[in-house]
């Protein structure tokens, strides 16, 4: 059984009288420990794809099974729970809580699991150590560099031990040196058995992945497996 299984997923938006098909009959399966990139130009539907995969949005039609759970028709609260249990988000703009320090940011998802403060701290520390930020736990996001912020965000995504890591242009706001650092971290996570799905428009990022899915006009244009990622430097 696949980890992710989409069959005939469509997402339509009504813009006045026109219906925009952001996703149009998508069928795709993702296995455990895959390292997958969605690429495509803007407007191709890859962001909508990510929202639906991440249970932030629900499809207009079609079936979505995540880890054997049917999720396409769940209400907001149930979706929140799925996101909390199964999914780790990494955003282009990091999306850290500005008034909370690194540790508090990483602890945040655990609050919604009703985990006590002590245990939350322990797990968050562990996660921050994993991304190499153990010495920055007291810093507020605006006291951290872009790369460090993204590491905090990765730590926050990892702290719940999710089934999938979903990264939306994770290096879009980073310089090339930090981009390499972050991608190396992703590679490591993958080699540890993590399932990663990255949305990007940069070929160098996609080149890290083992499978590249190109989207065009709401449809899958190509889906190709590539060799093991080679270091880009």
């Amino acid at each position, binding site marked *: 059984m696949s980890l992710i299984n989409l069959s005939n997923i469509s997402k339509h938006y009504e813009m006045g009288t026109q219906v925009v098909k952001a996703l149009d009959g998508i069928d795709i399966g993702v296995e455990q420990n895959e390292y997958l990139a969605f690429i495509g130009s803007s407007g191709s539907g890859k962001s909508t794809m990510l929202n639906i995969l*991440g249970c932030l949005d629900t499809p207009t039609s079609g079936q979505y099974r995540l880890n054997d759970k049917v999720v396409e028709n769940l209400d*907001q*609260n149930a979706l929140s729970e799925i*996101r*909390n249990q199964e999914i780790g988000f990494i955003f282009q703009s990091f*999306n850290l809580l500005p008034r909370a320090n690194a540790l508090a940011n990483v602890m*945040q998802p655990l*609050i*919604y699991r009703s985990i006590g403060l002590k245990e939350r701290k322990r797990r968050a520390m562990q996660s921050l150590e994993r991304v190499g930020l153990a010495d920055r736990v007291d810093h507020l996001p605006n006291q951290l560099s872009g790369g460090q912020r993204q590491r905090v965000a990765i730590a926050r995504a990892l702290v719940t031990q999710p089934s999938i890591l979903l990264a939306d242009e994770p290096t879009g706001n980073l310089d090339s040196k930090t981009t390499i650092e972050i991608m190396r971290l992703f590679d490591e996570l993958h080699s540890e058995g993590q399932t990663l799905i990255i949305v990007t428009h940069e070929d160098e990022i996609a080149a890290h992945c083992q499978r590249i899915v190109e989207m065009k006009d709401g449809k899958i244009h190509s889906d190709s497996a590539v060799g093991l990622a080679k270091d880009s430097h």
Partner: protein
Amino acid sequence: MFFAMIESARSAFASILAHGLRSFLTTLGIVIGVASVIAVVSVTQGMSAFISDTFSSLGTNSLTIQSYTPFEDQMKGIRARLTPADLELIESRATGIASITPILAANRSSQIKYGSQTSFSQIMGTTYAFQDVAQTFTQRGRFLAATDNQTRRRIAVIGDKVRENLSLPEDPINEYVEIAGEWFKVVGLLEERGEIMGMNRDDMVLVPYATMVSLQGNQARIDIQIQLSLSESANVDEVSQQLTTLLRNAHGLSSEEDDDFRIQTAEQLMEEFDQIIGMVTMVIGGVVGISLLVGGIGIMNIMLVSVTERTREIGICKAVGAKRHHILMQFLIEAILLSLLGGVIGLALGFGMGTLISNTIPGFPPASIPLWSVGLALGFSGFVGVLFGILPAAKAANLDPIDALRYE
């Protein structure tokens, strides 16, 4: 649920502290509202407690009968009177009376002299029964006796204030004072009773009733007061009804005419005071209610701003797994905390104000805060928090995570 509440309270505190000045200004409306209600309540409650104490020391089962002339009749020169005949009638006919005494106030001059000292005082002619009726006893010497009345002795029982004003010695017994050109021997000094509402109750001189009558000369025109105390079993309303019937008959009033006298009970007076205080409290309570409403709207306004401001944060929280009730709780608790904080500050401020008022105005009873008003103030401000917090909180909870994340 409990866990979520604790976490929400934690983050609400952080958020209130993060916007210190804004939080303070937001809650100012509640602070002022609660402070004024507590100040007013503490002052009026202090007053009301004091009045109750005072009246119960007067004896709640005593009645006073006074003549009463409507203002219109006064203009025509008509004066209603209570006469010694009325007193005799009541003494012989009315039931349920323990003691009864006439009081005749000095009508010419209330001037009293001792040596070179001159003073003005409330000079009353009364009988030995006055001490039972008015609960007034001597600390030195003796009270008026029945025989003093019969023999129209020129003696006086004085209050402590009078002794002080006239520079009489500590023990004024057997000293002579001059009232209306006659010499009176001081036979008793009354116990000190303090003030009620700025009226000194130690500033009085009691002389035998018959002596006072003789001093006034024209006996046909005297207008007395009658004070009486009821026996244990008697009912105030029944007795006053009975007295009304007796006096109306005696004064020959037809059924259309109004009473030309007034029967007052201490209880009645107390109730009137209580009514006035209750009304003042209610009117101010209404004003304060409005100010709390305005304060609540202020809180709602800021909470709505805060929700908009934190839209992205809400989106982030939802993305990492916050459910509707997590967000709802966070904003609701923040609103409640804000207004409760205002309530507590207002409580302290109000008590301070009440104490200040009662301390600066001389003779004012000390402020007291009843527990119910503390509960009411906090309960009401908490309620305001819930009432005006629920809308912004619901707005936050219902945000769509994708829209919220995209919000710039």
